[in-house]
């Protein structure tokens, strides 16, 4: 008996290599990867050679050539003497900035509306419901065009700007703000601010420890605000206020000087924010409702009021349900920002995959680079959200 078992054992542990399931599976995976790689490589080569056969230029040399066209808005220095490569970064940053601002604003608005939707106040909850149903069900492109038309038509021309004092102007060329001119020593104010930030973090830790030990609470919030404003403010005053402003002035055609937020940006941001907020609101609502009512009752039984119940008990648990779908809303918002081209906002698709592509004709290279950017943005957002998700995940003991 034991003899037989031993033999069987030996047979299992010692199959010939071509019959070993482990070796086999590795072998076939390598073959599959090799074939796939060869497929992509030959498709790529084939495409390139076909393109050069039909007289279409290929390669990335165009990135170093002078672009020769102007772009309405740029976060980095740019004029028509810069290169096509530079137009890539101008477009990329313009996309990044609407996506970034949109994500933050949509999150804030979405949470407010989502919580309002659950309000006990009939009017507030119905209003939130109506907002969600309307905004969610109208195509985003229409909303973008609507806001662009609404913003542009409603605003007066540069000569009749709406203005707040002598420093803020709003007209159909955008919002004009004073531009800060930093004097000597402004860097020290910035350093002071960061010291204050570090102080706040430290304060929070300390207050938490103290509360755990003694039960005494410390007004961390007000103390932090005081520190964040007070410390840099004090340094600023001591240094003799090293900051001045350049105001926008009316020129022959429009306002010149100052900084300018273009109306296309405002329209796009508004549309993306409102649209995504409606979805986020639903996610927040369902997340909160997923926390069993027992949790709220338990918090009540411990004597917590409504606010702290929501903040300390319900939302932290709801977050686990909220974050994964929230991530996909962030990804949607980022990708939706490419609809910018419909209203002339110079985002990556409009500038690089639009004008640059058209002037150079190098569709394959440019579309590949553009796709790589959206992919990178999406993967970055996912990575950050996954990290955050791990942090808030319930630690089961």
């Amino acid at each position, binding site marked *: 008996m034991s003899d037989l078992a031993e033999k069987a054992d030996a047979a299992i542990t010692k199959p010939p290599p071509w019959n070993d399931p482990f070796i086999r599976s590795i072998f076939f995976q390598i073959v599959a990867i090799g074939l796939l790689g060869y497929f992509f490589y030959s498709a790529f080569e084939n495409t390139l050679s076909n393109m050069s*056969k*039909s*007289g*279409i230029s290929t390669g990335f040399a165009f990135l170093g050539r002078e672009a020769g066209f*102007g772009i309405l808005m740029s976060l980095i220095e740019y004029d028509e003497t810069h290169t096509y490569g530079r137009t890539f970064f101008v477009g990329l940053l313009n996309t990044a900035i609407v996506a970034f601002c949109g994500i933050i604003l949509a999150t804030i608005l979405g949470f407010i509306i989502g919580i309002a939707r659950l309000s006990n106040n009939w009017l507030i909850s119905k209003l939130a419901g109506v907002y969600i149903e309307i905004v969610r069900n109208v195509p985003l492109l229409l909303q973008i065009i609507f806001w662009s038309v609404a913003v542009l038509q409603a605003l007066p021309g540069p000569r009749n700007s709406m203005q707040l004092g002598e420093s803020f102007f709003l007209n159909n060329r955008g919002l004009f703000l004073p531009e800060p001119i930093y004097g000597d020593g402004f860097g020290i104010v910035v350093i002071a601010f960061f010291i204050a930030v570090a102080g706040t973090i430290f304060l929070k830790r300390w207050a938490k420890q103290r509360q755990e030990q003694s039960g005494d609470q410390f007004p961390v919030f007000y103390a932090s605000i005081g520190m964040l404003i007070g410390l840099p403010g004090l340094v600023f005053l001591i240094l003799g206020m090293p900051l001045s402003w350049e105001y926008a002035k009316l020129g022959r*055609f429009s306002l010149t000087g100052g900084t300018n937020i273009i109306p296309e940006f405002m329209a796009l941001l508004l549309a993306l924010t409102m649209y995504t907020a409606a979805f986020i609101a639903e996610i927040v609502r369902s997340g909160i409702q997923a926390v069993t009512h027992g949790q709220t009752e338990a918090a009540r039984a411990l004597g917590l009021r409504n606010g702290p119940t929501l903040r300390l008990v319900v939302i932290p648990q709801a977050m686990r349900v909220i974050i994964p779908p929230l991530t996909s809303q962030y990804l949607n918002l980022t990708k939706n920002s490419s609809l910018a081209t*419909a209203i002339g906002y110079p985002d990556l698709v409009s500038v690089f995959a*639009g*004008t640059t592509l*058209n002037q150079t004709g190098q569709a394959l290279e440019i579309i590949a680079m553009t796709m790589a950017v959206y992919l990178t943005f999406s993967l970055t957002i996912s990575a950050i959200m996954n990290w955050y998700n791990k942090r808030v995940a319930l630690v089961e003991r």
Partner: protein
Amino acid sequence: MFQKTLGVIAAAGAVAIMSVAANAGTLDDVKKKGMLSCGVSTGLPGFSLPDKTNKWSGLDVDVCRAVAAAVLGSAQKVKFTPLTAKERFTALQSGEIDILSRNTTWTHTRDTSLGLNFAGVTYYDGQGFMVSKKLGVKSVKELSGAAVCIQAGTTTELNLADYFRLHGLKYKSVVFDTSDQSIKGFESGRCDVLTSDQSQLYALRTKLAKPGNAIVLPEIISKEPLGPVVRQGDDQWFNIVKWTINALINAEEFGITSKNAASMKSSKNPGIQRLLGTKDDMGKKLGLSNDWAANAIMQVGNYSEIFERNVGKGTPLNIARGVNALWSQGGILYAPPIR
């Protein structure tokens, strides 16, 4: 719009990957389809504009109709695909259209690096500027600091940058995809200036609610020879489009019109006989029937008829022949002989 752009790009990608060796043979394709696919603008009065029943008209449209008449025997066998300036070359490269006739400027870069060939010039244009009357501007040189509405993917965009830089002027470009959007931007005051090929400014001005409030400045800052474009590498098709245009211009020179073409067939003039296919095998040399040019002229008209019908004196655009007159009448229109 956006989806269409993506569609065009995707089509380009797919075609590129599946190898574009199928370059030659546009003529056979067109004959097999029984239909010419022609890329035009999204709507530009005088050049290519659909009416309420989706019937297209315009100078660029008539060029396609003439080619269809020469190749298929009927000027009606054309399918028009509206394209923005940005989409147009990709649509041609990918084979979505057989000919691009969309007020497109012939430039060195486009001719040499896009895999395309310009088959000739059907309208000599130049870039101009339109401003609102109340600004009181008289010259382009006064435009420093202005916001300028332009269309993405045009030569206009590049000329503007060159000219303003050369003259030390500042500007802000507000870029749109279609001329409809540009004109709305101009009308709503988003920009002070609209710049484009000058003929198109007159065309776009007719779209304003109050055309009288806008003026076109006198300066012309560039050369914009507009003409039809085909894919590189199909010489036969290239020749067909090139010689169809030449036939229309030569017809004007000979005084052959849509009305008298039939009777002109019995003319004693060997030049006219060759053009109308009663002498020699001019059509055969292109791979067409010998009455190719006669069909085009009878169904669409000679160059002068096309010009006057779409952009000439009797139309809202009211453009004089100017440089677009025949070389023998003070213009620069000069077609090589058909012989």
